[in-house]
């Protein structure tokens, strides 16, 4: 396949940045999207040009490092996959592909396609954990009976990899799907109930502090989420937040 790439180039956080056109030929449909970018970068390096900076790590769809807004969608046009699992067979010969960084005020661009998603880390640090005494008397989690439905929902919520596609896809740059998933994965389990009130209040407070927008239930986040995190998690977080404020 021969393709035209329109890629956001930005030297650093303070640079204005612009879209730059690149031609790339002989792209195999079996390549992953990131492999295609690797080939592009090899060519740029050979020509003495600055390669395109982009985030990646495991390339197995589980680390949440890769991002990219491809042809107007987070992680591109495929469903249930991250950019590293997106294959070039999803595109056609002669296509023009727009590649942009995830856009949100809370996710400032560091360079080219790399954005700073540490806002998610700070939200997680605000309450996305349970406090357990690990001095030797820890109860085996498997010894605690848990409703199968709750266990499944908690597991589904816990599959969130924190990639930020929800924020990137939301017209309001809301982080509520991410925070909803993190709140839910603990709220549904007995170990998480102990700190549930403080957790939801602190995580929502941090989310608001980071400058994410308000959720207006468009559902774009759920559609674009590579892990299929459900909007139910946002509804659960809303309930948790209301009850936490009533109890307090």
């Amino acid at each position, binding site marked *: 396949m021969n393709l035209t790439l*329109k890629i*956001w180039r930005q030297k650093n956080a303070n640079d204005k940045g612009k*879209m730059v056109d690149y031609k790339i030929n002989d792209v195999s449909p079996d390549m992953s999207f990131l492999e295609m970018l690797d080939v592009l970068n090899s060519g740029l390096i050979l020509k003495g040009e600055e390669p395109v900076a982009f985030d990646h790590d495991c390339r197995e769809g589980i680390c949440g490092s890769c991002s990219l*807004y491809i*042809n*107007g*969608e987070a992680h591109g*046009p495929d469903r249930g996959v991250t950019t590293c699992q997106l294959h070039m067979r999803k595109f056609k010969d002669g296509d023009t592909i*727009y590649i*942009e960084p995830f*856009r*949100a*005020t*809370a996710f400032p661009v560091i360079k080219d396609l790399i954005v700073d998603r540490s806002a998610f880390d700070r939200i997680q640090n605000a309450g996305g954990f349970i406090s357990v005494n690990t001095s030797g008397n820890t109860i085996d989690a498997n010894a605690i009976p848990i409703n199968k439905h709750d266990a499944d929902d908690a597991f589904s919520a816990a599959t969130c990899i924190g990639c930020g596609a929800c924020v990137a*896809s939301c*017209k*309001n*740059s*809301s982080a*509520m799907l991410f925070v909803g998933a993190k709140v839910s994965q603990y709220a549904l389990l007995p170990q998480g109930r102990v700190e549930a009130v403080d957790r939801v209040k602190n995580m*929502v*407070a941090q*989310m*608001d502090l980071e*400058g*994410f*927008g*308000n*959720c*207006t*239930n*468009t*559902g*774009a986040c759920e*559609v*674009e989420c590579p892990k299929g995190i459900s*909007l*139910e998690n*946002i*509804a*659960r*977080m*809303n*309930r948790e*937040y*209301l009850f936490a*404020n*009533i109890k*307090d």
Partner: protein
Amino acid sequence: MSGFFKSSIGRKYAMALSALFLMVFLLQHFAINILSVFSPDAFNEASHFMGTFWAVQFVLQPILIFGVVFHFVMGFVLEIKNNKARQKSYVKNNGNANSSWMSRNMLLTGAVVLAFLVLHFIDFWIPELNVKYIQGDMSGLLTDGEGFRYYEELVHKFENPLRVGAYVLAFVLLSLHLLHGFSSAFQSVGANNIYKKSMKGLAQVYAIGLPVGFIFIALYHHFNH
């Protein structure tokens, strides 16, 4: 509860609760208006009751006005805040791939409904306040004293095709607003189970059926008088 309504989720609740209140009001408004098609006398009686009963006039009406103003002001405030959350837009964004047009354009459809409400106030509400509280005529009777005036006023308003056209357009936009807004309100208050199952069908019946009903009333009186 201190600070609840200053939080993003608290504002969601406030927006959703005001929306649910307005949807209940709209249903009540429709129930009275549809009487004008089947029984002018019943419409007159209901209108006179709503227009003169103290609890409706001095308790429910101020709450309604507050609800309308709050919903619109909150909508604009949230839009401004949300725009700040993404100061740099995408060069290419494919919103149709993941969300409905209605869900992405609530401000637009809401603004049209707001413009319609201004027309509606000029048409019905302000003249009503003038007759009752400035002229002091609480009788609800026609100037010749032969029966109630409400049905005659309604019919007279729908003689003008431009006004009827504006009403039809506004209710089409209201339908688009409700197609997202109805289920969104339930999702916002955490009622995701209701939202996902039985309410989803009811949402479509309400969002399409009610505006179509209001349009039918306007067209019925336009073409039958």
